[in-house]
């Protein structure tokens, strides 16, 4: 039974992906960064579209929504997965609308009038069957994948517009997008980079080694020195884990202090974030993913260790007012414009999976 085989193969892959997610996207394993995570999720969703049994767009959306719920539950601190699920759902909506011949544009516009009149009709509309829908959706997902593959390059390409000669740039920790961004600028310009080490994980060390390898003048500073050094800095360029719906950030711990210091000195704070990091979530709770492996940080505490709670906040929330500019793969945007991008990328009904 080839059909059943396909089916088990698919569930097997989903299970494996879920297990990978649960074991922590950060660190080891195939899902090291959010870029990979986004790509893997999209591959899997394409597979589901291709192999799962569905007859109408509504079925498919239900399947994807279910799997998406499981995936996001598996690793709640990783928003990329949910974002990709929403993107795919939006793609399905668009393809369905195109097949039906109506333009999605009008339907999507939110207006007071629509809010009052529209019921739950839209869901029922997806019951119609189209022969080419599957192929079209897969084609669109493929486009999405190409977009994902090119994100880092697209962001890096804009580097020369933002970094000028002899500037002093500050960054925090390690972000592969920022690294690529700086490296791209270094091909033409000479500038100085100051890296805050970002204790306790000290990803900043890794970042500095990477930058100095391509000949960028790099200085590593302790996190405590951020404010002192800020007066000399022309621009702060950092990455983020998630861009929240209000234009705020959920970024690596220590980012908030950098942002405040930058505001104090009126230094521009530029965020390099690919579009797939844009999440319809608003700031709710701070997650403490791993306080583990900190026993070696606390050598003094031996006997009282049982009475000590170790909290290691991994992420900071940075409010949108501290941010000057977002640089994404589709260009630079102000934080106040994020809501607009949000409605372009995701359908409002998908905000909650």
């Amino acid at each position: 039974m080839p059909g059943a085989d396909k089916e088990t193969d698919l569930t097997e892959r989903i299970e494996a992906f879920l297990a990978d997610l649960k074991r922590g996207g950060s660190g080891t394993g195939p899902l090291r960064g959010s870029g990979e995570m986004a790509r893997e999720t999209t591959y899997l969703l394409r597979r589901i579209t291709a192999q799962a049994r569905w007859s109408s767009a509504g079925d498919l959306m239900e399947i994807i929504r279910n799997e998406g719920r499981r995936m996001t539950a598996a690793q709640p601190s990783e928003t990329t997965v949910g974002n990709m699920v929403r993107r795919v759902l939006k793609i399905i909506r668009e393809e369905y609308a195109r097949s039906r011949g109506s333009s999605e544009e009008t339907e999507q516009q939110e207006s007071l009038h629509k809010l009052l009149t529209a019921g739950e009709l839209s869901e029922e509309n997806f019951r119609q069957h189209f022969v080419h829908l599957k192929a079209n959706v897969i084609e669109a997902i493929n486009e999405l994948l190409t977009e994902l593959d090119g994100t880092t390059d697209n962001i890096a390409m804009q580097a020369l517009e933002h970094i000028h000669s002899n500037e002093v740039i500050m960054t925090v920790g390690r972000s592969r997008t920022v690294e690529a961004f700086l490296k791209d600028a270094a091909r033409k310009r000479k500038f100085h980079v100051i890296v805050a080490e970002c204790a306790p994980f000290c990803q900043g060390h890794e970042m500095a080694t990477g930058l100095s390898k391509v000949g960028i003048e790099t200085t590593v500073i302790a996190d405590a020195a951020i404010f002192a050094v800020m007066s000399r800095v022309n621009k702060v360029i950092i990455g983020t884990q998630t861009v929240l719906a209000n234009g705020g950030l959920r970024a690596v711990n220590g980012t908030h202090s950098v942002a405040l210091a930058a505001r104090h000195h009126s230094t521009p704070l530029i965020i390099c974030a690919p579009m797939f990091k844009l999440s319809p979530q608003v700031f709710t709770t701070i997650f403490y993913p791993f306080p583990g492996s900190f026993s070696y940080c606390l050598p003094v505490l031996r006997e009282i260790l049982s009475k000590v709670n170790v909290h290691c906040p991994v992420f900071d929330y940075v409010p949108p007012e501290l941010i000057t500019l977002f640089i994404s793969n589709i260009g630079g945007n102000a934080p106040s414009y994020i809501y607009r991008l949000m409605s372009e990328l995701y359908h409002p009904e998908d905000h909650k999976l």
Partner: protein
Amino acid sequence: MLQIYTSGATSGSFRGGKQKKGNVTSEQEEEEQPLQAVLVADSFNRRFFPISKDQPRALLPLGNVAMIDYTLEFLTSTGVQETFVFCCWMSNKIKDHLLKSKWCRPTSPNVVHIITSDLYRSLGDVLRDVDAKNLVRNDFILVYGDVVSNIDVSQALQEHRHRRKVDKNISVMTMVFKESSPGHKTRCEEDDVIVAMDSKSKRVLHYQKTQGLKKLQFPMNIFQHGSDEFEIRHDLLDCHISICSPQVAELFTDNFDYQTRNDFVRGILVNEEILGNQIHLYVTQDGYGARVSNLQMYDSVSLDMVRRWVYPLTPEANFTDQQGQGCTHSRHNVYRGAEVSLGHGSQMEENVLIGRDTSIGANCHISNSVIGNNCTIGDNVVLDRAHMWNNVHVSSNVEIHQSVVCDGAVVKEAVRLNKQCVLAYNVVIGPNLSLPEGTVVSMHHPEEEEEDDDDEFLSDDQEVGHSKDKTRQKAFNPAEVGPEGKGYIWKASMNDTEDEELAQCLWGLVLNPDPESDSESEASEESQDRTFQLEVLGTLQRGLEENIVCDNLVLEINSLKYAYNITLKEVMQILTRVVLEYPFQQQGTQLTTLQYTGSLLPLLKTWSPVFKNYIKRAQDHLDCLSAVEELFLEQDTHQTAMVKVLMKMYQLEILEEEAILKWFSTGATNDKSRQLRKNQGVMRRMSLWRKESEEDESSEEGECGR
């Protein structure tokens, strides 16, 4: 025996998919040698009695998830593709659990085979069976079913494989240890080890459990070994995870007396030169690994779980993938399952995990606790470090401190459980009662336990049912468990030492180990000497009572000498000691010197042939004398008797004159013995003897001549 097989092809295709159809050759290699693991889902001890009487230890819930699930998750996340689960005690329950779990789904990347037998009595039996059935083909990971860990052993595995490749099969085992300083709460007292290892090759040179010993001895040869550097470490925590080569199973078969991993490690280290096998160590700094070997460990591991030290195995991750097991995580490590209700004014301070459908009354204070599914908790309840399993009912005004409350237990109003109490399955306690510290209450009567002591391992359901009937006949004691209580106190009803041991075992509080339990190198030798001494004493006693000829006594002592592997010198010293202590043994230590010599001297006469048999060379004489001296140094009230003893021995020709004089003239080694010699004016007597001896000389020489 039951085995659950899923086709190897599925797991293979999964692997292939994960590698994105990459390197085909490496994929094939991986298929040839899937990583295997042996999981021993039995503890082979009774530390968790009486809890484990109803449920095998591997299935006891830790953070509302059975312990074996943690172990399997750990194995799966390290890339194990085939796991053999060996169960013995209550194997049916383990089997049922596993069949229902996600590990036996066809999509599981880790294929679980369940092997059950009632005949396993130790780890050794399991590994012998592994060898007999030829289950492992390659290096495998050996763990117990109660190990909780998130250590990434892939590097240890790599090191192990590399070592085995470099020098052909010399390294048989790599043990995984975690660095943790002494006093860390996850360090288990009984697993406290001291390890000497080669710094460079990470080879284990010496391995010893400290067991509270203050003095430790290391064999000299580890210092003389070729290596430049070596470390003696006491900051290691045994994670009970070992990477074994297939040889390990073979070695267990060859050495049928190996019972535990400890036996094995010691055996390998002792026979290293003969067999050429080595054991290595992998020390990790981060990660978490601990074995829940007693309730103390249960308590601390459970709290560590809730405090997220075992990330990513956190309660809200729901890694077992069971419906309805999910929970939310909020600040201060408070986890709530679905449908949890919390009364007005109740506080969950920190590190609290509450299972699904549990309801909590008003004004409760809960901290550092785990509460299972379907529990009801009344008003004004204080819970601190309480571990409640499923379906527990707690009435109002109850206080529970650091205790375990098993499934279905009922705690009535105004009950106070002090530290380290255990309420086993379905026990009812109260109302209005305060259980003293360390109380263990079970529905099983402790005596019934003693009755079927021998076949506890074999007891199946039928037998349990049978014994239940027996317990019914015995009434519950309302003074112990309260007016409406149901259950038997284990501690109070059992007699002294045994019960003491039980409580300690449950909570693992072995604070001052008794000298007899020191079974380690130095200690064991000493105890061997001691038993030898007792045996000699017994022999002599019997000889006296039954009038056995001295020649036969000699024969018996000789055979004992071989049995206990005692050197001739020690035999003599012990013999001397036994004889000189004999009067004390028989008549108590309050003897006057006069009585002492009075009873000793005839004995010396009777046993003189025995002495003569052992004391032949000049050195023997000196050794004997030093033994005499040693004894009298201990018994300083009887020092004056020493002269008489020496004289008698001289007269009986046990000791030679020259020897005594030489001993006397070599001088004392310390102040006390000098004192001894002076006090007695041995000198004065000596001259006396000399005269005597000169008088007897002719006849003596005549005897010698003959």
